[in-house]
């Protein structure tokens, strides 16, 4: 059972570079999310999607973009990386968010911007 798979696990970027964090789930979940977690802080929602072709902003969307062309994939794009984007990023998915609220998380991607 793969569940939610994120790549890469670690990445170092220079200020101004761009990159894409990949996220794939094999559970046929409609809902997918990107969170970031800073040290000593809870998870903050960046973007979410309720199905293919539909995305919406979360609490902290600035500096990021997403797309959802298929049910399985939900990549997160960082344009013009800044040190403030140094964080651990988690992708998550759920089947019926309104019913259970349970999210299944990937193992995280640790990003450092220098």
């Amino acid at each position, binding site marked *: 059972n793969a569940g*939610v798979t994120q790549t890469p696990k670690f990445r170092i970027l220079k200020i101004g570079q761009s990159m894409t964090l990949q996220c794939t789930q094999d559970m046929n979940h409609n*809902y997918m999310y990107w*969170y970031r977690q800073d040290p*000593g*802080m*809870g*998870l*903050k*929602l960046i973007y*979410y999607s*309720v199905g293919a072709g539909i995305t919406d902003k*979360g*609490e902290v969307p600035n500096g990021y973009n997403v797309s959802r062309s298929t049910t399985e994939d939900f990549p997160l794009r960082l344009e013009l990386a800044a040190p403030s984007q140094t964080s651990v990023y*988690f992708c998550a998915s759920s089947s019926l*968010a*309104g019913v*259970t*609220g*349970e*999210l*299944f*998380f*990937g*193992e*995280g991607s640790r990003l450092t911007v220098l």
Partner: protein
Amino acid sequence: EDKVVQSPLSLVVHEGDTVTLNCSYEVTNFRSLLWYKQEKKAPTFLFMLTSSGIEKKSGRLSSILDKKELFSILNITATQTGDSAVYLCAVMAGAGSYQLTFGKGTKLSVIP
């Protein structure tokens, strides 16, 4: 703005102790409260609570919700070193909302 506050932020106990973790919230249109355990990597789901006064149990862990006083507690009895983790509380709120608002977490360390 929705707000979830956990206390304490960190806690050190000895194996065998019982601990109580707290989560209070201020949200509009509360729908559910969830507890997650985060060890080294991804959070894993523990409980979801929607109704006041109904205890959820799983082994040595239990949780209860008080919707009148706007808080939840997570109890862990007979703690083990494997219980060492960050425990996250999250609230889903708002009509038609698919977002969870997380607290900062309580870091629990269980020492032998």
